[in-house]
């Protein structure tokens, strides 16, 4: 009997294929949007996680202020050279301690100019980031002290300013600092957040402070623990040292934060997950609109087929059977829409994901959910028209023309 009903429903749908397709278009778009957004979101999350874990779990980030989702690092005292020295002297088990100041500046060489991120740091930064040089050398000690200008440039900067030529030994101007290129960084590609890590110029911290930042303070410090040293120990050592140095009373919260990669990863993926959820919610609204579209057409269909319903009722169809017939039709329609939407959404996500260079992570949960949801939409929005059909008066239905 169910098979019979399904066959009837299929016939009613296929009788007017174009209209059936237009009817479910809303559901198709809704489901496709949900699937595409969630799939791309999952891919991005996976990429961020992979990226961050590649940076190593033995890396710690030290920033002024409390850092995390929803918390800004404003109004907290920045670090200084003495903090860096103190950490180097008093915390054991560290492989690298890299002070870090960031800025953006226009970089000029010859006739070409390019806006790039400019980092002021020490050689320890390259150690902490496991970043090799493709060409040239690292900073010498006199350069580190800031008495001599020197710059290491990323691959993107090299390409923009020098094309295929070897830049080592050439001069570039960063903001108003004239600076010889001493090395070129190995290609690193995009970061988990989609920015180009090779679009960077690295110079000694002192030079950066004096000529770019106009400051004597330090924005953040990257710490890298030696292999086999627990980051949690380093974390608590650094924390107590800094509390002491910053004179934070017992019971008061830190005015700085020490996070390892996993904590930062959690915060970042938290953001992507939230974003994915929001986009999913927007898409869910379009699904609702799709459901209303189905209800509308089912109501039209009931009116159009009043006579047919009258015949069925007259020759012995129970209300329940007519109700089931129309309900199955609506559910079948919306399931077709759902499946089409799932396929479209996955295809769309695949395209976007290849463009963004993000892994394709199809979530079976969300696919099943979208399928179940579209079936439920057919059920909910099909019920009212189906009930209307079932409760028609057969005499009037037969007279209807």
């Amino acid at each position, binding site marked *: 009997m169910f098979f019979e009903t399904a066959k009837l429903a299929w016939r009613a749908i296929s009788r007017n294929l174009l209209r059936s397709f237009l009817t479910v278009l809303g559901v198709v778009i809704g489901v496709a949007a949900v699937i595409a957004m969630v799939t791309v979101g999952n891919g991005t999350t996976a990429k961020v996680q992979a990226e961050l874990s590649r940076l190593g779990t033995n890396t710690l980030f030290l920033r002024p202020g409390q850092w995390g989702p929803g918390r800004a690092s404003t109004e907290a005292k920045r670090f200084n050279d003495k903090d860096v020295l103190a950490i180097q002297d008093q915390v054991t088990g560290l492989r690298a301690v890299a002070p870090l100041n960031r800025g953006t500046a226009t970089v000029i060489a010859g006739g070409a100019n390019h806006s790039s991120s400019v980092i002021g740091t020490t050689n320890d930064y390259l150690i902490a980031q496991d970043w090799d040089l493709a060409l040239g050398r690292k900073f010498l000690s006199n350069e580190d002290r800031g008495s001599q200008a020197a710059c290491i440039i990323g691959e993107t900067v090299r390409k923009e300013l020098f094309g295929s030529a070897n830049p080592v030994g050439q001069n570039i101007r960063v903001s108003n600092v004239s600076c010889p290129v001493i090395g070129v960084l190995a290609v690193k590609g995009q970061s988990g957040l989609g920015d180009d890590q090779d679009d960077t110029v690295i110079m000694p911290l002192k030079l950066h402070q004096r000529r770019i930042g106009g400051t004597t303070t330090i924005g953040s410090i990257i710490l890298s623990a030696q292999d086999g040293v627990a980051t949690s120990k380093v974390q608590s050592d650094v924390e107590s040292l800094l509390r002491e140095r910053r004179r934070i009373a017992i019971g008061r919260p830190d005015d700085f934060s020490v996070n390892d990669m996993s904590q930062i990863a959690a915060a970042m993926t938290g953001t992507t997950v939230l974003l994915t959820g929001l986009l999913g919610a927007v898409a869910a609204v379009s699904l609702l609109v799709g459901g209303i579209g189905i209800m509308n057409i089912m109501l039209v269909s009931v009116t159009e087929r009043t006579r047919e319903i009258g*015949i069925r009722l*007259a020759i*012995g169809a129970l*209300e329940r059977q007519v109700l089931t017939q129309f309900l199955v039709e609506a559910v079948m329609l919306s399931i077709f829409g759902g499946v089409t939407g799932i396929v479209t959404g996955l295809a769309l996500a695949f395209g976007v994901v290849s463009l963004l260079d993000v892994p394709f992570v199809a979530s079976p949960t969300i696919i099943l959910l979208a399928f179940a949801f579209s079936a439920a939409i057919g059920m909910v929005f099909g019920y009212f028209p189906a009930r209307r059909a079932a409760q028609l008066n057969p005499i009037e239905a037969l007279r209807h023309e």
Partner: protein
Amino acid sequence: MTSPLIEFQQVSKFYGHGEATIRALDRIDLTIHSGEFVSIMGPSGSGKSTAMNIIGGLDLPSSGEYVFQGIPTSVFDRAQLTLLRRHMLGFVFQGFNLLARTSAVENVELPLVYRGMDHKERRRRALIALEQVGLKGREGHTTQELSGGQQQRVAIARAIVTDPAVLLADEPTGNLDTRTSVEIMDLITRLNRENGITVIMVTHEEDIAAYGKRLLRFVDGHLASDQTQAKEPDHVL
């Protein structure tokens, strides 16, 4: 004397309320026995269609009792009335009322679908019914591919495929030309005689009504006359 198949006991049907009340049927008493061929005539608004609808379980009396095979139907709910139609009654309409874009055999199978009969048995019975109405070989034709007379034959096959106790025909020849009308009436007469199906037919044509063995005339909601017709129509073989 056999017990009556259909019995109206003071059946009335009103439409509207208060001053505007229309009495479509006014305290009708009527008995129809199994195997009868009853023609019902009357001007429009006389109550003949209302009577047919009540007999067919499509409408309910406002007062009085409609007894079917000794069972008062006032105790039936909507579903039970549907089951009465499904198992006991076959309908033939003036407008044929076949499903469009559906083959003859599928149209005939429809009432059996609702009985939950399996596909093979359904098809077998539908083909027999189509053969009975002389449409062997046209099973696969869709409604649009059949002439009016053929469509009405399909409708009759659909009505008799369930082996109903009563065939209710509402102006079965109203949309047909004279020659086809005669063919359809011969078919109905034969089903009445040979298969013993009780036939109740509404018509407004005297010569069609003459096929019935009994003629009821309705006027203004009353049964104006009820006569047995001795004369056999000439066309019946």
